[in-house]
């Protein structure tokens, strides 16, 4: 009894001491974070309005009929994707675009991935050499094309060496000047290629990379690999992720793009100029946040060489991907993302606060350091401290409430504003029920989800600092609207 109250006394002192130090800074941190997010959202909203108005004179028919516009190579790395690969490739071939090819890189699949493709497209082996513009780790086994010799599909088989290396092989095999990386289970809107090449078409000399928002797909009605109806998923875990994606990925990144300092492009759908990819050396197979790392490398390369360039974000909802449905998989994903974030930021630490690197170095990187990397620390520790302090009587009610307001209330407000912008520009969720569910999800996010993801992110960071080897996650795949799950061991990056 004595020991217990003694322990409590000591704890109270410790917490009290810490709180005296950090009470106000913590509040300020959250106010600043959310306000900055609001600013980014403002920029994004402006951008959306602009894009929306452009539609009335965009002339997509002309673009599709274009004779001289640049072609696109769609690179699809595939490991054990037998369930979805055929539907996916068929849908990709049918995309509305003037000129594109599909390159599937079979990363040593052990299931029927290749057989499915061979059957569906009547593939025959050809003696086509894959150039070595980029260094790749393992050799190509063989190359197949459809028997008619005209369908623009190329299937390259190689031994298993991971997604990044496979993408590099795909880049080597690509013949068009623009290359896009797509996960095998991503769904694209019919005009996706038109949308994502628009920045390149408008400014061919400067734009080197574009990124596209990816929305969670787990429960949309998909027919033949094309989105037919956007339905909201049933599990609350997925619903919360939908909300999170809206706020963080779509609007956050749009804002950065408008500001001219976009440093992160979703791995599920990014388009790059092939020559630039070759210049910088393609994806780094050893990096965990490989999409982030690639974009940073491009920024550094272009700035060092004093090139006038742009990296842009396309805000239209044109791509969907599966998100984790179980806590276990979500945990692994978040932990891995944060680890990738840390390692890449650390690798390019020389660029941060370096005036030589313009907006990327002076604004974007410091922001990512202060508000993305460190955020989970403050979120988690702050929450623990306040909860503990409140329980111990160190922290009074109004402080506790203030903390909630600033950390969670303000964040919910930012989320709601994100939804306003989304509703006004894209309004993809038709049913009232879905809208209500989303609103509820944005509230629920603060009750456990945010704390949990903060903890998992810290886990990832700690694992990296300890030098633990990274573990590639598995994701149970639902497939396209059919209920037979398939286990895939492909790292998921969004």
């Amino acid at each position, binding site marked *: 009894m004595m020991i217990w109250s003694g322990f409590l006394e000591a704890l109270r002192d410790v917490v009290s001491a810490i709180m005296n130090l950090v009470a106000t800074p913590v509040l300020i941190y959250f106010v600043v974070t959310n306000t900055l997010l609001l600013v980014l959202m403002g920029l994004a909203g402006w951008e959306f309005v602009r894009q929306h108005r452009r539609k009335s004179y965009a002339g997509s028919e002309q673009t*599709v009929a274009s*004779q001289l516009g640049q072609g696109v190579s769609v690179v699809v790395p595939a490991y054990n994707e037998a369930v979805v690969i055929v539907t996916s490739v068929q849908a990709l071939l*049918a995309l*509305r675009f003037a000129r594109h090819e599909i390159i599937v890189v079979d990363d040593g699949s052990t299931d029927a991935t290749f057989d499915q493709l061979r059957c569906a497209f009547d593939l025959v082996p050809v003696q086509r050499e894959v150039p070595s513009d980029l260094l790749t780790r393992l050799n190509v086994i063989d190359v197949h094309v459809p028997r*008619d010799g*005209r*369908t623009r599909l190329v299937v390259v088989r190689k031994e298993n060496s991971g997604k990044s290396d496979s993408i590099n092989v795909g880049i080597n095999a690509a013949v068009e000047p623009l290359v896009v990386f797509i996960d095998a289970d991503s769904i694209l809107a019919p005009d996706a290629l038109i949308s994502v090449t628009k920045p390149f078409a408008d400014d061919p000399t400067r734009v080197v990379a574009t990124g596209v928002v990816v929305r969670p797909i787990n429960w949309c009605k998909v*027919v*033949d690999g*094309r989105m037919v109806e956007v339905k909201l998923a049933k599990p609350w875990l997925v619903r919360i992720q939908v909300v999170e994606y809206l706020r963080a990925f779509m609007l956050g990144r749009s804002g950065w793009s408008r500001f001219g300092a976009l440093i992160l492009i979703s791995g599920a759908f990014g388009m790059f100029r092939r020559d630039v990819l070759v210049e910088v050396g393609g994806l780094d197979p050893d990096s965990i946040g490989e999409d982030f790392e690639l974009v940073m490398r491009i920024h550094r390369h272009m700035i060092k060489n004093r090139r006038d360039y742009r990296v842009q974000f396309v805000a239209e909802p044109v791509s969907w991907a599966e998100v984790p449905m179980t806590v276990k998989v979500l945990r692994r994903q978040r932990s891995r993302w944060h680890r990738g974030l840390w390692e890449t930021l650390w690798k390019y630490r020389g660029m941060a606060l370096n005036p030589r690197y313009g907006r990327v170095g002076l604004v974007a990187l410091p922001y990512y350091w202060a508000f993305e990397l460190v955020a989970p620390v403050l979120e988690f520790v702050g929450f623990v401290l306040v909860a503990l302090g409140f329980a111990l009587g160190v922290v009074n009610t109004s402080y506790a409430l203030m903390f909630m307001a600033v950390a969670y209330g303000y964040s919910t407000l930012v989320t709601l504003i994100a939804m306003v912008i989304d509703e006004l520009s894209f309004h993809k969720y038709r049913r009232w029920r879905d809208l209500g569910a989303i609103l509820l999800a944005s509230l629920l996010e603060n009750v456990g989800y945010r704390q949990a993801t903060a903890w998992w992110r810290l886990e990832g960071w700690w694992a990296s600092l300890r030098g633990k080897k990274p573990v590639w996650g598995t994701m149970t795949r639902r497939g396209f609207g059919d209920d037979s799950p398939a286990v895939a061991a492909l790292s998921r990056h969004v």
Partner: protein
Amino acid sequence: MTEPVKTRILVADDDVDILDLVVFKLTQAGFETVAVTDGMAALAAIEADPPRLAILDIMMPGLSGLDVLRKVRANDAMSDLDVILLTARARDTDVDTGFATGASDYVIKPFSPRELLHRVNAVLARDDR
């Protein structure tokens, strides 16, 4: 007095405007039409009840018009179906591919509905001979 049997034509295009337009034109000209908006439905319709002629858009959801054409030509029961491709893909290589895959004709968008009708009649007459 029996009515003459109308020639049935399948039209597949995911663009509802084009679909309505072509269907209307053909109906006015005395054809019976079946309209679908994607490749899978087109293939299913052809397999279920083969039409006399099919007008296919190339860039459609799921299965492209070229894929449908290929599957039709590969299937002995349907391989003599006349197919006209109606598409925005206008490059020489696309036209080559269209004909090489087995199209009876290739019409580029933007198109003249009247010209399309002439071509439909021409393709039908060619085969009737």
